[in-house]
């Protein structure tokens, strides 16, 4: 499905519906993470920040959005 309708993806373990054609960059902005330091993995592959704006998501994509937390 592309160009219209919705796609279903999993973001940090939770299902989410997005407009078809949504890019990684657009998803981060929608989640309020546009300015944050976040690393993105799609289907176990890191999407480098430079490709966020050009990487379109597809139905079934599993995304991990990660950052640093306190740890030892």
């Amino acid at each position, binding site marked *: 499905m592309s160009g219209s309708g919705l796609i279903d993806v999993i*973001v*940090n*373990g*939770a299902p989410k519906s997005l407009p078809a054609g949504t890019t990684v960059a657009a998803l981060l902005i929608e*989640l*309020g*993470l546009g300015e*944050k*330091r*976040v*690393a*993105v*993995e799609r289907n*176990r592959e*890191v999407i*480098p*920040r430079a490709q966020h704006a050009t990487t379109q998501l597809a139905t079934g994509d599993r995304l*991990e*959005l*990660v*950052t*640093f*937390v*306190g*740890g*030892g």
Partner: protein
Amino acid sequence: MSTNDTWTLGKHTLTSRIIVGTGKYASLDETRAALAASGAEIVTVALRRVDLSSKEPTVLDAIDRKKYVLLPNTAGCYTADDAIRTLHLARELGMDELVKLEVIGDPKTLFPDNTATVEAAKRLVKEGFQVLPYCSDDLITCKRLEEAGCLAVMPLAAPIGSGLGIRNPHNIRLIIENVGIPVIVDAGVGTASDAAIAMELGCTAVLMNTGIAGAKHPVLMAEAMRLACDAGRKAFRAGRMPRKDYANASSPTAGLIE
């Protein structure tokens, strides 16, 4: 004797002998104050999913990147693949090549899976990472990690978060004497004397988290740990007196009044 006593880890020249974790503090203010009091130049962080339900500041807001080198860890990883995957994400977050590798073998003890750690270390070194592996206080494992190209080895003193101190100082000493890379005791330090003992044994540095964050007054303990690491290091460099079984008077035996 020279007063200059720096050491190097990759491209970093370091004065401090303490590396501290950033977990388990009551607040980011306490984190910030404890890091400052510890004198650490390297601090560890973990990688986790972004909390999409919270807009609160994160640990990165508490760490001044100009003052501290961030050392991402692979805490919670049980396979070499998971650890490597985690460090790829850390690299994407803008870290340099320095990483703390831990591959856990068992949830109850958090003891490392040394075999998987060596395997992961080999692969990470090939990818250009500078690897600091958490491992058992086992000389042969440490030798294998050195051969794999690790920058240092980080044997545990006792289980992570246990505060039990240096359970086997003899093993730590054998590791120090038989590997050619820095030995950093990682895990198990519970109080200042534990850190001092590690340094007196000849460790290059000590890595701790709960020993500070779990104290009643973490910021004060951070300072105590800094002083202990310094004291232990100075005692090591000074070279302790030989142990003797019997007394040896400090005052002259001649010239006693009669």
